[in-house]
């Protein structure tokens, strides 16, 4: 990879790196990692959401008195 500074021409390798091809496999892989972040966040919120819902639902049902600490 090199660049001729005199005539401003760019070598093919550089063109490839600066050309955005939505079908580029590398781009698809990278985008998948960005989505993986959101999947992780969604999973975490779901777990904590279930814990929160669990506590709220407890208020609506008769629960085992042994959990009642008084």
């Amino acid at each position, binding site marked *: 990879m090199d660049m001729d*500074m005199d005539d401003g021409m760019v070598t093919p390798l550089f063109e490839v790196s600066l050309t955005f091809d939505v079908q580029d496999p590398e781009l698809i892989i*990278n985008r998948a990692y960005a989505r993986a972040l959101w999947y992780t966040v969604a999973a975490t919120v779901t777990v*904590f959401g279930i814990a929160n819902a669990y506590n709220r639902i407890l208020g609506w*049902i008769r629960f085992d008195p042994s959990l009642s600490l008084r």
Partner: protein
Amino acid sequence: MRTTASSDGYGLILVCHCANPRIRNASSTNSAISRIPTLGIPSAIAFVSAALRELTYPQPLLFKRYTFFNPPPVGRIYIVIAYLSLILFLLFYQSIVTGPMYWESIAYRAAWCSVGQVPLIFLLAMKNSIVGTLIGSSHDRINFLHRTVARCLFLTVTIHFSFFWSEWSYYHVVESELVMMPMVKYGMGAYFTLMWIVFTSFAPIRNIRYEFFVAQHIISFFVFITMLLLHVPPYARVYVLISIGFFAVDRILRYARLLYHNLSLFHRKSKNGFACRAHLTVLPGQATRVTIKNPPLASWSPGQHVFLSFLSISPLQSHPFTIASTPADKELSFVVRAHAGFSRRLYNRATSLLPTTSQADKEKSFIVFFDGPYGCPPTFLQYDTVVLIAGSTGVTFTMPILKQAVQSASPHCIRRMEFLWIIKAGSHIEWYAEELTRAMELAEDRGIELIITCCITCDPTYTTNHPIRPPPRKCTCCCNDNATDNEKEDNNSLVSSISSQEALAPCSCMNRRENISVCVSAGRPDIREVVDRNLRCARGETGVAVCGPVGLMARTRNVVAELSDERGAGKGTGAYGVSLFGEGFGW
């Protein structure tokens, strides 16, 4: 001024608040028989809860003078480590290649990891966040995650920027990149704007002046998002647009609620255009009490806060304050300590309205807008024993909890309460002298064992312990008929010192009330001793609420974690668990 949070563990701790069934059971039986988790699932839940509390509560207190430099509670450190590990994994997993694509491979991966985090930052900054609703937390606690994600974004953007820059430098094409690729310039603009945002968001900087921080933060946000829109390629722009969508939805919800609460159009009882007027009262210690009578707010929970905006004092500014009253009071009450900026202007305005002035009563009230309430504090009615610890204006957080417990007509589990208030001067007791004495009476009526202690730390006139006893209530028995007018006046006055207390001559039927007293002591309290003695007396789970400066918060966190560990709560020893909820100063 107070605002946000400092608790930890977030949803992890949710498991610990298995509250409502206890209230249900308390309503169905008056039995005070102690029960501890038996074997099986309840025992496992109790064990996990206790273990999580002991792991997440402690907070190292390394700097007593410069508290900003202290690390956050351990629970938050776990969260930071977990998130940072996730980002580093996504950033470097299979992105390190050899050869000429070394820089670009990591730089592009960093770009995607960065743009993927942008919506998350906005999601966590929302006042009306879906995340907070789902996990049962509030925006002030989630704001910690907002800052954490923003700092990780800065890390990934730095890697993105530096790896591209290294490549261009290696091939000597930096200048041509800047000339040929406008997006590079926009990217650099976004990067340096983000650098500014992250720098000004560190606690020592952002706490210098709240108004300045908020103003520059919003301006920086617009600059950053504009630069980012111009920088990212079209196929990645959806992340930026989602971010703008989160911001827009939050603002629309806030403004809709603001208009609904504050325009008299929606509330018939208001006569003029605005629904709320605030009355200011000067309090000792350069504090101001803000009172909004008959607020257009049906209910709120103790410990929640609202954003107040005074058009005539600080236009276009809104500041968060904890509601110091309960819905039973039928008013919104706040205590604002004068520092700089808005709180100082508020205090100065209040002092100019002292009763000596000849202004009409209507002129002494101000149009005020409020936005809220926000915050998700736990229900303390679920605990057998409640310990409330407050430093200075932190009492605005603990006082409504105390009042709710003693005022609540519905059954609850509280059997014993201790209210500890640490203040600098004895005169500060006047902020809540009436409420404290009233609470003592109500607690006795309800059969709640209530201990109130005020610790005065910087007042040389308080060198020994003084009991403050409540004024005798107006008596309807025959002996009161002979009371003179002066005695009747005395009976209606507040007792805030020994001398005035001695002047009272309660009738014989008040003997029972004489035993009620608020203990005022000089010096700092022993937090460990306070929590420990309540744990020893507990017949069920204990809830500890603390609101105050960093040192008090950290001390209480560490004490609760230590005592829980020492007692082996939830670990088969039979000791009851202890739960902590901390609300710190700052934002």
